[in-house]
């Protein structure tokens, strides 16, 4: 029973396992999906159950431009990661900044819509069931966009300081995975709130 005994067993060739960052982010995405599912179920369950107005049909406007912004930011973040892998840092920084700008635009769009709903239509989170479910669902998503933007910005600052290299590409990929998730959730939220829900 010594180290000699352990070496009876041959070390298997090429013992590589998954990257822990990717696995953890995948798990986080599963957990977050469950949270979003519950909020989506609540939204769908309460459709048309509000006792007072305003209703979604009366006040919601489809944010097509800002949706395009968010969805294209998925593409830019993907190519930013690819550029980093090839150690093309100027391209990485440019595409990464573009991602932040597109995400920021989307957040601005949400803010503008909320401003319009609150000041023009008097719809707040406590107005009716639609207000409660709408603001919490879209707000939950906006919260995730904000968290993503903060993390993206931290990477950008590090990048501008010259600290991000190609050997960190897989870490950047983990963040990109989160960003793709935020986009994918928006596709579902968009479908439920602006297409099915009206």
């Amino acid at each position, binding site marked *: 029973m010594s180290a000699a005994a*352990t070496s009876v067993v041959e070390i*298997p060739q090429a013992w590589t396992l998954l990257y822990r960052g990717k696995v953890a982010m995948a798990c986080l995405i599963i*957990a977050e999906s469950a*949270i979003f*599912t519950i909020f989506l179920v609540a939204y769908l369950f*309460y459709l048309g159950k509000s006792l007072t107005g305003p209703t979604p049909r009366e006040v919601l406007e489809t944010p097509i431009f800002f949706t395009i912004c968010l969805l294209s930011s998925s593409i830019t973040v993907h190519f930013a990661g690819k550029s980093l892998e090839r150690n093309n840092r100027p391209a990485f920084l440019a595409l990464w900044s573009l991602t932040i700008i597109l995400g920021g635009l989307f957040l601005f769009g949400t803010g503008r819509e909320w401003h319009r709903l609150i000041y023009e239509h008097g719809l707040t989170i406590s107005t009716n069931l639609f207000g409660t479910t709408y603001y*919490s669902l879209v707000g939950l998503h906006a919260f995730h966009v904000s968290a993503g933007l903060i993390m993206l910005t931290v990477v950008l600052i590090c990048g501008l300081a010259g600290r991000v290299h190609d050997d960190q590409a897989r870490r950047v990929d983990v963040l990109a995975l989160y960003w793709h998730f935020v986009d994918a959730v928006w596709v579902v939220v968009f479908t439920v709130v602006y297409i099915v829900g009206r």
Partner: protein
Amino acid sequence: MSSNVITIQGLEVQEKPWVDTLHEWVTTVDHKRLGILYIVYALVFLLFGGIEAIVIRIQLMHSHNNFVSPQVFNRMFTMHGTTMIFFVAMPILFGFANYLVPLMIGARDMAFPRLNAFSFWLSALGGFLLYFSVVGANGLYGAGDAPDVGWWAYAPLTARAFSPGHSTDYWTLALLVSGFGSIGTAINIIATVLCLRCPGMKLSRMPLLVWLNLVMAGMVLIAITPLSAAQIMLLIDRYLGGHFFDAQAGGSAVLWMHFFWIFGHPEVYVLIIPCFAFMSEIIPVFSRKPIFGYPVMVAATVCIGFVSLSVWAHHMFTVGMNSYANSFFTITTMAVGVPTGIKIFNWIGTMWGGRIQFRTPMLFCIGFLFQFLIAGLTGIMMAAAPFDWQLSLSYFVVAHFHYVIVGGILFALFAAFYYWYPKITGRMLSERLGKWHFWLFLIGFHLTFDVMHIPGLLGMPRRIYTYEPGRGWDTLNLIVSIGAFIQAIAILVFVWNLISSYFNGAKAGNDPWDAWTLEWSTSSPPPAYNFATVPVVASRRPLWDLKHPEDPDNLYE
């Protein structure tokens, strides 16, 4: 395997001042220390929850008792349930998972040590918030003390109008915060198992404990999160004037029930699956046989994981769902019995023909097998919707789920304590005290929870603070309460055993049980780095291979 520990000759270790030791424990990111922190933290809350249970039982000892007021009684059962599930069972199982999973897969630590520490301190904050409500919940209204809405906190009882003050807020925040801690730990366990296994440790060679904790962690990801989401909604209702569960504005109280039980029922399996894991490690060692039907055990666990996600509404048969929903949830609930039955069959198959050693861990395992079977049978009874209509919200239900949680989960935990305490502390727990603990607890358990079924069948509702004489419940309740006291004495024996053996127990050595998994190959307690050289494994029982190089397991797997 003395070579698995590095010794430095001539190095003098000086006693550290206690402040330094404390600082080390508070700032630690070591999975073993965090595991111990989880376990000790849970044991403290076990005493709190136990005292609450004793208060409940004193109050119900005879009819028209006024040991505590109805208000205090409400707080007691709310705090008892919440504490036992969220701040005893969850952290203690996470503690064992934290401690054992990296050791069993030959890893240095968890995948994310700092996330691990963060998760623990989140859970700790949750428990602190819950109990801080006792002094902090009065708020501006001067109403409410500890939370008193029941552990499932049905709407609209939790609305501002019916729960003024802040006790419900403390309850919500405690569960939300500890829920985030649980999600962090679950992510960590999955990443550790998938990414840090030592060379040769294929998925098909992982110890069953690791497999089952992997399934448990996966379930935490999708079962705890609905509760977190529902708590956020409740906070929106209470603080921002939302209407999620506000029937006055068209909101639905039943939706809360669904959200709560979508969490609540898988939660039972989140708790019991790690206990299955303990069984699957301990029974083979004390039967001197490898586990019977390893792949089937894994498959059955995954199967339980999936099916248990679709059974939640059997808690809601009395709400008045349509017949299709009733039938669906009856069928799925009964279906869970199949993979669970397979497991019990396999454990018995492992014992069959083995040379069984009746040490204390094995005694608790055998207790588990019988009691969990009975708990499963009453579960099947209540899965039938018409039967449930009769007995829902009665003491029969209370007896059933305590049979699962005490007779199953707690017995498995005691087995785990007796089995791994030597590894964690380097000392054996006393067998003599262990046997006292086992027999006292067994007698107390059966007095309490066997008898408790009967007042339930006679119609005694749960959560009543007292009852009329002459209903035939008095004697039965007295017996139930006496059993509770015997269990309390057994717990004190256990705690005394933990403390006295820590100082005076026999030295354990690396491998006191002649076991087969990797944690027994390093010293007791293991060094901070776990293994001096990364182990390499070729079968499910690496230590068997080491001890029997002439007949290694990998020839047969």
